[in-house]
């Protein structure tokens, strides 16, 4: 009878892979209405499974929903990393740091909002907007004076960002009493108490979190991306560790007592549900795919393949790397924000660099440079490690659960030895294929005709 769980886990995973395939296939159809129907269906199938109840038992229980939400946030983080590493060739371990930044940033906004304080949203919102303006302004000025070394450019950007942040804090501080009557107070509830407003604030907080992560990634990536691949990797590891250190000290070194440092931030409203997750999953998929399948995306691939040749082709390599890094971090920030409002509690331990290996493992597992592989691997990883293994080992006696993280590296090793290019290599499904323009489709036909062997493993180094 307990085997029922096991079978259930396997069936669910298979169904989800089918679901991903269907989603990508449908999104890849040319007509807009076909895409729309796909989105509605893909959403509806899972929503129905969540609502379907057989007696006491939900077809898609809270356990499965939790896994699903985590799989989706992991997908966002990993897709961002795949853009940075798989498509642009920049080995980054900082992704988990941006995830943490996004989580804490949006959590702080909604936490304050639900505590009757709109200033979090004001300051963070203003800060990201002013910060972006400051960055654009400095960028524009630096463009005029060509050839400014990266370290000096970094200094200017940093000063601009700090100034923007300072201005945002001052401006937000000045604005919030002015706006207080509109927001209401605990005695006379206004917008602050409205559930609809809370949903809107949640949405804004996710976007702000993403933007904030993107700005941080810009200022960090600017100098560091000029380092060679492995050195960049180490610097990003350092970034992840610095972020965690700051989170641990968020109430002492940083001025955020509500984050409570190492004690963990409680009381984050649990606003994440399947609707939000699905919406942002689609958003991230579209962002990443549209980025990759464009001229900029091809330039990104060129940078991965050969930086010197890319420069000789007129590609601004530094700018291109920065773009991929910023977009990748942006979606990681979104993922973090969604996660924070799912779990309702944030502790810096969750953003440790050891856990930061997970998205990297997923990206490599799924296949570097395969967006489909990343999604499949994210779902597979969560549902295997957190779902299947838990269920399986739970049946095998009291010592068995300790083996969960022993079996996981063994599986990892075996896969890497058998298939070093990852599960899917660079194969893509439906929506992600480069076949969306007419020429691309001609390519499919042609490839089929010539029976090309498109073996596409990525060779590292020389």
């Amino acid at each position: 009878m307990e085997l029922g769980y096991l079978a259930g886990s396997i069936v669910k995973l298979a169904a989800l892979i089918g679901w991903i395939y269907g989603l990508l296939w449908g999104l890849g159809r040319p007509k807009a209405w076909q895409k729309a129907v796909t989105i509605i269906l893909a959403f509806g199938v899972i929503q129905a499974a969540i609502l379907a109840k057989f007696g006491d038992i939900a077809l898609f229980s809270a356990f499965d929903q939790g896994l699903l939400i985590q799989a989706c946030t992991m997908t966002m983080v990993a897709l961002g990393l795949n853009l940075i590493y798989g498509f642009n060739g920049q080995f980054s371990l900082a992704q988990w740091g941006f995830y943490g930044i996004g989580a804490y940033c949006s959590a702080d906004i909604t936490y304050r909002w639900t505590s009757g304080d709109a200033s979090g949203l004001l300051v963070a919102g203003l800060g990201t907007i002013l910060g972006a303006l400051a960055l654009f302004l400095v960028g524009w000025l630096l463009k005029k004076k060509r050839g400014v070394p990266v370290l000096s450019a970094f200094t200017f950007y940093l000063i601009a960002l700090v100034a923007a942040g300072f201005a945002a804090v001052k401006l937000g501080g000045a604005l919030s009493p002015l706006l207080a009557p509109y927001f209401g107070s605990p005695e006379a509830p206004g917008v602050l108490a409205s559930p609809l407003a809370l949903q809107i604030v949640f949405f804004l907080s996710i976007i702000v979190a993403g933007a904030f992560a993107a700005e941080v990634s810009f200022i960090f990536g600017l100098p560091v991306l000029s380092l060679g691949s492995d050195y960049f990797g180490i610097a990003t590891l350092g970034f992840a560790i610095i972020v965690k250190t700051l989170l641990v000290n968020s109430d002492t070194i940083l001025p955020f007592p509500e984050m409570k440092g190492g004690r963990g931030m409680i009381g984050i409203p649990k606003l994440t549900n399947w609707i939000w997750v699905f919406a942002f999953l689609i958003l991230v998929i579209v962002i990443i795919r549209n980025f990759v399948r464009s001229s900029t995306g091809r330039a990104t691939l060129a940078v991965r393949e050969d930086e010197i040749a890319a420069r000789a082709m007129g590609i601004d390599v530094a700018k291109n790397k920065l773009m991929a890094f910023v977009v990748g971090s942006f979606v990681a920030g979104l993922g973090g924000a969604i996660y924070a409002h799912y779990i309702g509690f944030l502790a810096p331990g969750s953003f440790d660099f050891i856990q930061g290996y997970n998205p990297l493992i997923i990206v490599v597992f799924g296949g570097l440079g395969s967006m489909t592989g990343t999604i499949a691997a994210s779902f597979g990883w969560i549902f295997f490690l957190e779902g299947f293994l838990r269920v399986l080992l739970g049946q095998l006696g009291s010592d068995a659960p300790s083996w969960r993280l022993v079996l996981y590296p063994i599986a990892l090793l075996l896969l890497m030895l058998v298939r070093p290019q990852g599960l899917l290599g660079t194969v893509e499904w439906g929506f992600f294929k480069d076949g969306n323009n007419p020429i691309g489709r001609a390519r499919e036909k042609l490839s089929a005709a010539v029976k090309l062997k498109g073996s596409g493993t990525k060779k590292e180094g020389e």
Partner: protein
Amino acid sequence: MASIKTGDTILSIKKATKAFGGLLAVKDLDLELPKGAIQGLIGPNGAGKTTAFNLITGVIPITSGAISFEGERIDGLEAYEVTRLGIARTFQNIRLFTNLSVLDNVRIAYHSHAGYGLGDSLLRSRRYAEKEKELTERAMDFLGIFHLDGLAFEIAKNLPYGQQRRVEIARALACAPRLLLLDEPAAGMNPKETLELMDYIHFIKDRFDLTILLIEHQMRFVMGICEYITVMDFGEEIARGTPAQIQVNERVVEAYLGKGAAKIAAS
């Protein structure tokens, strides 16, 4: 040398020097490249030819001296800026984007004049659709010129060597250059292929109205195709002139064959 006016000169290098630590890879190199010419840069191994190419294209920064392209200083520019100004190059060891298709290799070269930005691609605007279609069609037409359109969807690394060379040259031309630098285009080719390559170079020069500077070791190829030749040894220019002048130049023969050889050659 002052006889060539700037109007006629597409590229001018004045006293270009590149030092790697204490080693002078290129020393006080002067080079004037008349518009529309095919000029050769030859010299024994380690003479600094490829370094000179790297200086022109901005791959490595110059230590001292000046490089002007069409009357404008280009030393100190980034490599991609030099390319966008109109200088394209190929590499000694072919540097195609090996895991991408031939079509993508060419489309990447179009990137700097794709006509749409990141915003367009993220939003999939109409501009994106139009420009992307136009760009792709242009790339296909372009490949057609070289009879490479049949290979458009081949992955670059799966092509045979000779074709990779041709794709690399085509890719360089896709950058819409007015000056093309070819680094040992005939390396690894048999005599027949070399002859084909000579025709090919003439063809592209006329078709795209190019000036060409090339490095080559195969003397028959160089002598057969170049109108002017500059000879380098140990980072310095030791001779320049027409192929006929170079062939009898004592210092050149010495550089290639060692001292004493010149006399034998002369006799």
